[in-house]
């Protein structure tokens, strides 16, 4: 079962985990990325192009399914305005064996950072707001998989 979603609504991790688990899998790995309230950040806004994000996530899921034996995959990305502590992204990957579940989770979270079309704007307690610049480190991590 592959489930991919991009949406402005909050991500209910426990509910997604329960739905993902319904089949029962030998090994499940997950990654949860949350908004960090560093440096007085009060809002993280993610802008996106709906067609490009949906296509990007679908392609990532398809690549992962072609590369590893997957029992189930859940890939949910939130967009729009978020507060510190909110879940931005959830990856749940299950496989009969642990190495695959861990590898696909790491692959997807690395790839998400570079392959999915999202733009971040940070707003701070003092009123400053700025669009985040591209970071080289993300590309270096993602290229390990090529």
């Amino acid at each position, binding site marked *: 079962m592959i489930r991919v979603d991009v949406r402005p609504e909050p991500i209910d991790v426990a509910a997604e985990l329960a739905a993902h688990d319904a089949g029962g899998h030998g090994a499940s790995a997950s990654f949860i*990325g949350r908004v960090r309230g560093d440096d007085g950040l009060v809002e993280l806004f993610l*802008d*996106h*192009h709906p*067609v*490009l994000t949906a*296509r990007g996530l679908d392609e990532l899921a398809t690549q992962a399914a072609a590369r590893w034996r997957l029992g189930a995959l859940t890939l949910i*990305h939130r967009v729009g305005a978020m507060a510190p502590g909110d879940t*931005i*992204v959830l990856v749940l990957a299950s496989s009969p064996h642990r190495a695959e579940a861990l590898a696909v989770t790491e692959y997807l979270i690395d790839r*998400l*950072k*570079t392959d*999915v*079309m*999202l*733009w*971040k*704007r940070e707003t701070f307690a003092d009123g400053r707001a700025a*669009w*985040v*610049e*591209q*970071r080289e480190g*993300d590309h270096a991590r993602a290229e390990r998989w090529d």
Partner: protein
Amino acid sequence: MRIAYFAWVRERMGIAEEAVELPTGIATVGDLVRWLATRDARGARAFAEPHRIRAALGGAMVGADAVIGDAEEVALFPPVTGG
């Protein structure tokens, strides 16, 4: 044809999208960006640094030399900053 703007390109343009009739001689995405940069003040602000602009045609990423042709939408935006 429709142009969609994202992130700080949208903020500087002051609009999320607009319908335009391409002037004669505007064939590629690069031509379009150069034209927008000279069209008005907000365009000059948004497209002052063309190397910082990325584009998608019909939902697929393209380079500056991509021919717009009869695409319904050209999307213009900064490099992505990840998930």
